[in-house]
């Protein structure tokens, strides 16, 4: 397990190198001039040239890359737009993103795993049909459509919730009020896929021979399900949830757009549109690193629940 962990960690280094090269490559392929964006519509050619000089936009690509990487690691890579250290910019935006994402995730897990388990146990019952239909809708309905409908209903018609925006920390009333709709919309999709995964893996596992063994031992039915089957089902569920967590850091661009939520997703999108090259680079790199690291953690978590890996 230790070896495994170390090996995976070592593998991160080349992985990150290639990721950074790729991001940089895409960045440089992108037409558009950061200087123009920076200076706006009234900028003179002279001023543009100066700005390009200032941000080294005219030097050869590899020089730019090395410089960018160097700056990134020394914490000197500054966003053109925010004029602040890229890492700090991203971290600040991470707070609303995490508030939204984690709330949604908690909600999703709290609902979907029990629902999935019950559906699998009470297969073909009313409950099963209802939850599976809901889940099917969950994966089929575009988040922006749900978002629009909710805004229409709760903000426009009923006027009980704010239409959009970030209301401050989620531990304040206002913050919470702002969080409700986007968190629900986001969690709906997560819920749907987790419920489906839970149900299908539980259904698979309930067919296993060792479940029959447990029953033959006289283990109580709920113990059979929770202790014997669910413990094994944790692995596919962990993959699914892990993937969602990893994606969650990248923000839910669509949800954030619909609800004007100031998260990492919109930060990255705006950075791309604004041609804020350092920020795009730093932001995407950080997000990719987080993605890779979270995936690694999921794999390690696998190791904890799956003795086969633990004792490798």
């Amino acid at each position, binding site marked *: 397990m230790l070896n495994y962990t170390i090996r995976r960690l070592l593998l991160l280094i080349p992985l990150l190198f290639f990721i950074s090269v790729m991001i940089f490559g895409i960045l440089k392929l992108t037409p558009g001039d950061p200087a123009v964006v920076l200076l706006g519509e009234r900028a003179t050619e002279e001023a543009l040239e100066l700005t390009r000089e200032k941000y080294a936009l005219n030097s050869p690509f590899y020089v730019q890359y090395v410089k960018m990487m160097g700056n990134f690691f020394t914490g000197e890579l500054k966003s053109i737009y925010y004029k602040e250290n890229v890492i700090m910019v991203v971290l600040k935006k991470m707070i609303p993103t995490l508030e939204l994402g984690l709330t949604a995730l908690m909600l999703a897990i709290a609902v979907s795993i029990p629902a999935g388990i019950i559906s699998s146990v009470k297969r073909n019952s009313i409950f099963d049909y209802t939850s599976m239909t809901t889940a099917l809708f969950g994966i089929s309905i575009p988040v922006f459509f749900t978002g629009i409908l909710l805004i229409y209903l709760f903000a426009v018609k009923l006027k009980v919730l704010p239409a959009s925006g970030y209301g401050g920390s989620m531990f304040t009333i206002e913050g919470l009020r702002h969080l409700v709709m986007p968190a629900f919309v986001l969690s709906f999709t997560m819920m749907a896929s987790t419920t489906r995964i839970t149900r299908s893996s539980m259904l698979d596992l309930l067919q296993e021979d*060792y479940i029959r063994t447990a029953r*033959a*031992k006289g*283990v109580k039915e709920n113990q059979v399900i929770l202790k014997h089957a669910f413990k094994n089902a944790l692995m596919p569920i962990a993959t699914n949830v892990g993937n969602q967590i990893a994606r969650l850091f990248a923000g839910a661009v669509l949800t954030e757009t619909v609800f004007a939520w100031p998260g990492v997703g919109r930060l990255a999108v705006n950075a791309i549109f604004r041609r804020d090259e350092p920020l795009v680079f730093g932001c995407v790199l950080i997000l990719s690193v987080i993605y890779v690291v979270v995936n690694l953690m999921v794999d390690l978590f696998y190791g904890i629940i799956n003795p*086969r890996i633990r004792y490798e």
Partner: protein
Amino acid sequence: MPLTVGLNHKKITNESGAPNNGHVRPADTTNLKNPLKTKIYKDFPTKCTDNDDLLLQIENLKTFFHTEDGLIRGCDGVSYSVKKGQTLAVVGESGSGKSVTAMSILKLIPDPPGKIAGGRILFKGNDLLSFTPDEMRKIRGNEIAMIFQEPMTSLNPVMTAGEQISESLILHRGFNKKEAMSNAVELLSLVGIPAPETRAGEYPHQLSGGMRQRVMIAIALACRPDLLIADEPTSALDVTIQAQILRLIKKLQKQFGMAVILITHDMGVVAETADMVAVMYCGRIVEYGTSHDIFFSPRHPYLKGLLRSVLNIDNEEDDLYIIEGNIPDPLNLPEGCPFEPRCPEKMDICTKQRPEPFFFGNVHYACCWLHA
């Protein structure tokens, strides 16, 4: 030394009427003067069984599977009985319903598609089919235990061997975790696993096939059941390991006085271990008798063929005997005798009517019109 564990259990449950874990055995409350019993004996084939020794009696058991393609009669009117401490071997080709019958006893048939469609399973005189799930649960692993065919997949991969053994002890004996675990270790050494303390902490994938099967046996024996159902416990194992496991079961059976239902398709194993033998074909018992009857005076053409086609090292024949044809499709069984299409001695009646048991002596019977 390890034996004391098992013996203690027996004492707790059998002698002090109300066991300390508070659960009352159905057998204790309902005695053998069950009104149903006389009726059973009337048409049950094993006419002259000594009643008091009777542990399990299956009568006309029917288990059907309602599949997409149609109805499969997994076991179709099976009757047999097991006496205390006896070994009943159930033999037959693959798909003949051996496992289905065994699983029906514990009511472990997957539903859907399976359903027990009729018959009676009397265990110590009580019909298991009338038991509630909760009552059934108390029987399972406690009074009737089962060992499954596949040692590779029958153990939970995320629980240690020790945990899996101690689970039933905690359930049925009310042990706490520590007691259960130390008992589990003793059970492991009882089934002949070296270094049981370390093995108890290991996960199934760390154990070899033989060891897993031993762990399965340990699980089954944990509560010292009265009846052990072993469903092809050795067919996935090597010859040498096979012999070890069979010997172990025999040894433990003697020690604990268990009855064993041994399901197998290996006539050699039957010859070595069985007191009684039931030969199944297409969900039915075609011949039933003592081991001696079966081997030395087989009556049913299927059994005769089977015995002739068995390979063994004493057999010097060049060409092996072959039962022609294949087993029929379980979806559309022939109307009459299911063996009729392959039978070398078939008669007109065989196609039309299902044969009834014909007795040769007290217990030995065969379902074949030849002996009508």
